[in-house]
């Protein structure tokens, strides 16, 4: 390994990238736009109250309590008969029909959209509390949490995994396409016919791309923390170290994919193949511990799983870099990086070593 040749490759990658203003802008601005959208959707606790119809013909509660229920701020309440309510439900004019008999509360929802159905129960319960005072809550379950807080929004919980996902996603695509260009334009052939060794080439690429990946990571982290005001507890520098370990692996996967693709169109088709399994299995959507047993081994071989775990520990639980879990995850990420880099090196074929 000759450090000068490695530096030359890294500089070349960086220079090329700096000239490509559009890619550079995409690298920085695209994640910010998406994060802003995510922030707007998931970042607030004030959801629109659902429309709820009380079926008076099936409800045996005093009128005063029904009044209080209907006027509760948790729902947009209305009165009707059961049949009228069902009609409104079918026509999409209301989200739920409610009737209360004795101690049992019946909620009828449309049912074709589970997310919408699920979002009704909470507000209805709240409205009931408003209507009959503390009585309805008497048997309720009080949820308290060790980490985070009840005023955390969904965004606060998702920010760590989103930060990791964006870093991985953009760096992977960029390194795949740019190394593919090296292969198709013939410059790789020229490099291989120079004193440059394959290990030097891969190391140079890793250095060049990791540099931009880290700039991206800084921008994303600062944006989520200071603009989206995501609540976090850990040290920003620790978050950064985890990100760095993740993106080194992402660059190597990019180089590997470029070996399997013949053109840029094919390289882009690899994006869902590499990314979607990680979206579903790395704890981004479903906690790894809740995956079926037969899927857990798959989660264990995905870099994002470890990045997610470490970043959640740092950002939500306030873990430090020296925590065993964080150190282990960073170690695993670096191990991934080394294995993938070796794979990338093997994928650059020169028959004569």
């Amino acid at each position, binding site marked *: 390994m000759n450090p000068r040749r490695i530096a030359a490759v890294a500089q070349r990658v960086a220079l090329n990238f700096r000239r490509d203003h559009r890619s550079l802008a995409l690298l920085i601005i695209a994640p910010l736009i998406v994060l802003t959208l995510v922030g707007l959707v998931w970042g607030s606790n004030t959801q629109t109250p659902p429309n709820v119809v009380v079926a008076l013909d099936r409800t045996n509660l005093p009128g005063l309590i029904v009044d209080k229920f209907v006027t509760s701020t948790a729902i947009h309440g209305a009165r009707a008969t059961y049949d009228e309510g069902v009609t409104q439900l079918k026509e999409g004019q209301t989200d739920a029909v409610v009737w209360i008999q004795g101690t049992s509360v019946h909620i009828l929802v449309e049912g074709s959209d589970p997310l919408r159905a699920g979002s009704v129960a909470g507000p209805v319960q709240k409205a009931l509390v408003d209507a009959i005072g503390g009585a309805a809550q008497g048997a309720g379950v009080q949820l308290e949490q060790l980490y985070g807080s009840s005023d955390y929004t969904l965004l606060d919980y998702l920010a760590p995994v989103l930060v990791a996902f964006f870093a991985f996603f953009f760096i992977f695509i960029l390194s795949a396409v740019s190394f593919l260009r090296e292969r198709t334009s013939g410059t790789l052939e020229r490099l291989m*016919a120079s004193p440059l060794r394959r290990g030097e080439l891969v190391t140079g690429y890793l250095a060049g791309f990791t540099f931009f990946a880290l700039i991206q990571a800084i921008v994303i982290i600062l944006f989520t923390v200071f603009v989206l005001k995501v609540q976090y507890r850990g040290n920003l520098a620790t978050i950064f170290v985890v990100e760095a370990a993740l993106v080194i692996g992402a660059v190597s996967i990019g180089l590997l994919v470029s070996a399997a693709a013949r053109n840029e169109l094919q390289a882009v088709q690899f994006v869902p193949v590499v990314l979607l399994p990680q979206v579903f299995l790395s704890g981004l959507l479903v906690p790894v511990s809740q995956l079926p047993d037969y899927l857990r081994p798959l989660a264990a071989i995905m870099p994002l799983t470890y990045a997610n775990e470490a970043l959640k520990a740092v950002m939500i639980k306030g873990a430090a870099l020296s925590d065993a879990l964080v150190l282990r995850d960073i170690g695993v990420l670096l191990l991934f990086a080394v294995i993938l880099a070796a794979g990338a090196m093997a994928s650059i074929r020169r028959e004569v070593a």
Partner: protein
Amino acid sequence: MTEAVVASGVRKRFGAVEALAGLDVQVHTGEIYGLLGPNGSGKTTFIRCLAGLVRPDAGAITLLGQAPRAAVQAGRVGYMTQAAALYGDLSVAENLSFFAKLEGLPHAEPRIEAVLRTVELLDRRTSVVSTLSGGMRTRLSLAIALLHEPDLLLLDEPTVGVDPVLRQELWTHLRSLASGGTTILVSSHVMDEASRCDRLGLIRAGRILAEGSAAELTQRAGAKDLESAFLALAGQTA
């Protein structure tokens, strides 16, 4: 006379295609050797073997007394690919300085200026490569191969798209390099270019059909010029 390139019995097969079928070539030091043959005759595969990019299935190759990759690693070989392999987003000078660093040139600036003068691109040194014409790119590609003053130059169809005046000048330059001791192996299918080489190897179907100077080959075939000589010699063994 010492040999800069010794290739004997070189064979290479890509699937069903036998690209090189027992090729024997010896190139003397300081000689310009032309590899002349139609498309698909094995010229490029042979040059890629010499550049250390392809490992022959059989046969032996030494460059300057070393294995191909060792000679390349030592910075003694300059290779110009058939397509001008350059970084389009980088300037002319940036491309050169990148390859200079890979070759470990200590004082690159004067060398970069010298090769740019040779290929007449000095006034375009700050131009971004993607804005250059095809001929200019070919010249830059040649400049990169010349940069580290290699003992052996491998040029795969080096003057494609270069205008006749500059082609003349480039050949003058190659001739002066050769008289300074640089060995040059050129592939071509242009007869006019071939006639400038000291010796020619007519290659077809991965084999050398005939070898000698342009005059010898023409005489041997009893032809009036090199082109008809090539056609006649190729026809005899086909």
